[in-house]
């Protein structure tokens, strides 16, 4: 297997030791790397299989099957998926929902975190618990009444052409903000607690009001945490599927992740197109993976590791 040769090439690179103990260590290391390389290959297989299918022509796979050596590789599937299903339109929908949602979530949660971490009010702990618990609820628990509330809440027509919160992208932004604020507040509170209290006190002595302490002293110091959370929240909101399925009724208004479900029946008629469409939809999150890996990982672990 190629995996074995690759593994042995990887691990024979360090000079082998001559002592017996060195040999044993080396053997464990070979075993370890072999295991890890094999695991990684298995892990990549589903994605690579989709990539493989997406680059093959329909004729090729129809006559030779998918489990065959490709006769030719092509970008046609990506082009077809992109144009026929009008993917740019759905990407734009996602953008219209995701960017405001992330921005408002961070704005809201940083304000709450600021108050909770800088001042000793009696409601602090209760508030944090309410936010955190709310964020952990399975969304389906609130789906039924939320749907009704959205159906009964009128909106001005410039915000929603349905005239109601239901079936409006504004409504989606709202529920994302309401849900995600909990997690971000929790993380940012822990982060802000590590900023010396003397900083805001000095600012206050200099005559800065609460707003200036928040905006000019604390927020700039939270940039790393905000960047990490922005990356994470972007990915989460981008990946949301349920809310759009429940709260959006017009297929045209759906963000890309939820739209794929309709598109796959309508436009993506063969597996090659499904694969290409899926990979295109995954593209923004893959960019996050490759370009913002550090922020994403620190966002994920910020909430769990000790503050």
């Amino acid at each position: 297997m190629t995996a074995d040769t690759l593994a042995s090439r990887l691990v024979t690179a360090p000079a082998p030791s001559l002592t017996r103990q060195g040999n044993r260590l080396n053997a464990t290391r070979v075993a370890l790397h072999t295991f890890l390389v094999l695991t990684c290959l298995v892990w990549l297989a589903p994605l690579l299989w989709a990539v493989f299918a997406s680059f093959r022509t329909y004729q090729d796979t129809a006559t030779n099957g998918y489990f065959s050596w490709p006769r030719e590789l092509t970008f046609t599937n990506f082009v077809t998926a992109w144009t026929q299903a009008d993917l740019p339109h759905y990407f734009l929908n996602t953008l219209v929902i995701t960017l405001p949602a992330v921005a408002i979530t961070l704005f809201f949660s940083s304000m709450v975190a600021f108050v909770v971490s800088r001042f000793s009010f009696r409601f602090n702990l209760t508030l944090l618990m309410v936010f955190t618990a709310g964020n952990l609820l399975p969304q389906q628990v609130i789906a039924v009444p939320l749907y009704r509330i959205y159906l009964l809440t009128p909106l001005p027509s410039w915000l929603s052409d349905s005239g109601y919160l239901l079936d409006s992208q504004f409504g989606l932004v709202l529920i994302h903000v309401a849900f995600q604020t909990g997690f971000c507040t929790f993380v940012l509170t822990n982060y802000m607690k590590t900023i010396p209290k003397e900083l805001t006190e000095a600012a206050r002595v200099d005559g800065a009001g609460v707003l200036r302490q928040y905006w000019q002293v604390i927020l700039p110091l939270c940039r790393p945490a905000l960047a990490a959370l922005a990356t994470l929240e972007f990915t989460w909101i981008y990946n949301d599927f349920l809310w759009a399925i429940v709260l959006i009724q017009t297929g045209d208004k759906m963000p890309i992740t939820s739209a794929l479900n309709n598109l796959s029946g309508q436009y993506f008629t063969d597996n090659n197109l499904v694969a290409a469409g899926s990979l295109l939809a995954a593209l923004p999150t893959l960019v996050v993976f490759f370009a913002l890996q550090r922020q994403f990982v620190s966002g994920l672990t910020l909430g769990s590791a000790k503050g």
Partner: protein
Amino acid sequence: MTLAEQLDAGTGTTRPPRRRARRKSTALSLTDRIVLLLMVGIPAVVHVALVWVPTIGSIVLSFSEWDGIGGLSDIKWIGTKNYVDVFTAYPRFWPAVAHNLIWLVFLIVIPTAFGLLMAVLLDRKMRFSSIYQSILYLPVVLSLALVGFIWQLMYEPDKGLVNNLIGQVGHINWLGDSSINLYAVLVAAAWRHTGYVMLLFLAGLKALDPALKEAASLDGANSWQTFWRVTFPVLKPINIIVLVVTVIEALRAYDIVFIINRGRNGLELLSILITDNIIGESSRIGYGSAIAVVLLVISLGFIITYLVQVFRKEERS
């Protein structure tokens, strides 16, 4: 964390003289008080109105019968009839509960154990460690809906990679056979979840004091003993977080199943039943709400465990 200790001490009961002095020196102007109130108030109102009010709404509506067509005045109050019906007369309910439980146990056992193993193996100085880590957590950035699409390609009876590799082309219908499709889907869900668990454990292991392990090995413990007697107990806070994250993930499971077959034929889940009762052809709001309350009760148990763990730590530190 000495700073946080000092900050939190302000809310405690010790050191009364200094506290009084501080209270006086931090007296807030009226404007500041109003600003602070708005800063907390607006987000809190949005959160409570859209998360907790509907939660209570679910509980209230679960005692009602309402088709949602007429106005709120059409709601009939029928006591616990919805619960009785759901428990006794709804054929999809108990399978859904069973599937959710299997989902829970599977996610707790397989990805957690494997993620922990990977974290332990990769938490050391060695070549390519960060590449291995990246590959394992790559699926974490993908949406569960996309995971559904990607694994559908893997599981196709004729064209999928799985059947072609094991030489069973056309013989095993992984997603269509109701006796195995739940497990096939769980493998896909685990594929995504393992990386997440691994990252959480890696963060926990990194924060571990290396002196602990050294002390253990000086005392003659081998690495197996060191892990189970020293490392693992110290990881307790992370273990609880992993547990809760996993449980919530299992209870929320929806997208992947919806993509594959809309939660029918062996893939029924509580979450699916709830949305079926509001966006499906029949709008039975009381019914859907009763199922939602079942889900709420199960999840609250774990949420409270989590809050106790996290905020007890907060109080202590």
